């Protein structure tokens, strides 16, 4: 199963993850 997130955010939004990285519920994905 997969979850796709699509969202509008300011241009300075930055992801805090890398492709292939394991994540857990509540872990930071990104921030402005």
């Amino acid at each position: 199963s997969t979850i796709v997130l699509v969202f509008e955010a300011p241009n300075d939004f930055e992801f805090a993850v890398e492709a292939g990285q394991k994540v857990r519920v509540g872990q930071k994905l990104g921030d402005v």
Partner: protein
Amino acid sequence: LLNAWTETPVKWYPIPIAVGALVLVAIQYRKKARKEVHVDADGNEIIRLKGPWQVHVLGALPLRNMSRLWGYVNSLELPVWFRPYGFRIYAAAFGCNLDEIEPADLKSYPSLGAFFYRRLKDGARPVADAVLVSPADGKILHFGTIKDLRVEQVKGITYSLDALLGVERPGTPPPVPAHMPAPSIPVVDDHEFANVNGIEYTLDQLIGASSSGTSTPVSDTPPAPKKFGERIDASVVPELADVPEALRHDASVAAEMGVRPALTRSTSGTTVKPGHSLFFSVIYLAPGDYHRFHSPTAWVVEKRRHFVGELFSVSPYIAKRLENLFVLNERVALLGRWKYGFFGMVPVGATNVGSIKVNFDQALRTNVRGRPPPLGTYTEAVYSAASTLLNGQPLMAAQEMGGFCLG
């Protein structure tokens, strides 16, 4: 052979220019054929099975029936004496952490399906102080910005964002309860964005286009905040002390979103605001992962679009080979708004986990028997009755939203 391999001298010859040019032409032709988009009379992209022969073999299989059979087999009650052994073997094979599950007694899970949909203990997943947190345990397959509304699935292969999420067509607003103002969602003009390593899909494909779906209002009572999301209360936001108890949850979400409830009835128009962009992120849940999903931020879900599709595996192996994977598969597009504008979350089913549950939508039924409607069509429900304050289903960051079940 060894002697020939080690002792034969290597001689390099220049390739004739004509041969080199032919190779370049062939590469360009293949790239063009890959990017070719077929559209119907309305200009909507026609979703087709595209990929190497292996995916066409997969496409010929009765995947939906196989998925339901898999679900039935895994719902069978296991002997109590066998459960601890069976689940421990499963946990060892797929890397489940049995120390964090609730209840911890393995005998209390009657079937593998029940164990698969297990809960976690309180505090097992701390919530980061960030605007966007992970909605699930899993692996980040891909992320980035959406350009020309095409989503990249893997490198060089894209799909339309419109196909993924669906679009509002001018003049065809979705039905809503008569006493409620019509919710609006931002509709992007161009429709594609990214998936994994270069394959893209359209926004329409992901969330559906309103012209191909039907809407029904859903008016379930909003659930109480779950443990993961209980972060905002009167001690954190003093203004909440004056809010009636029944509206505390909604007001908390509004506070988290940084807006006054009375001002949150409308989302932005059909494009993103100046200085904003559309972003995407794809998270893959492996068979051993915790399979419930949570809210990735404080937001209001205004509607859901249920696309009945195929149930291909969504493993990274298939994602790299099967184009349009995420717009072919059955999925539930939850659309709404957060503090920065449009927000959408799309749980996508797979062969082994074809059932998608949404806690606040008891009417939703996925992976049901019967001939599926044409690809790209969907049924829509609006959540405007869930909260008159926010005109949708309010969710706190990390609040449990639902999950994936076996079969």
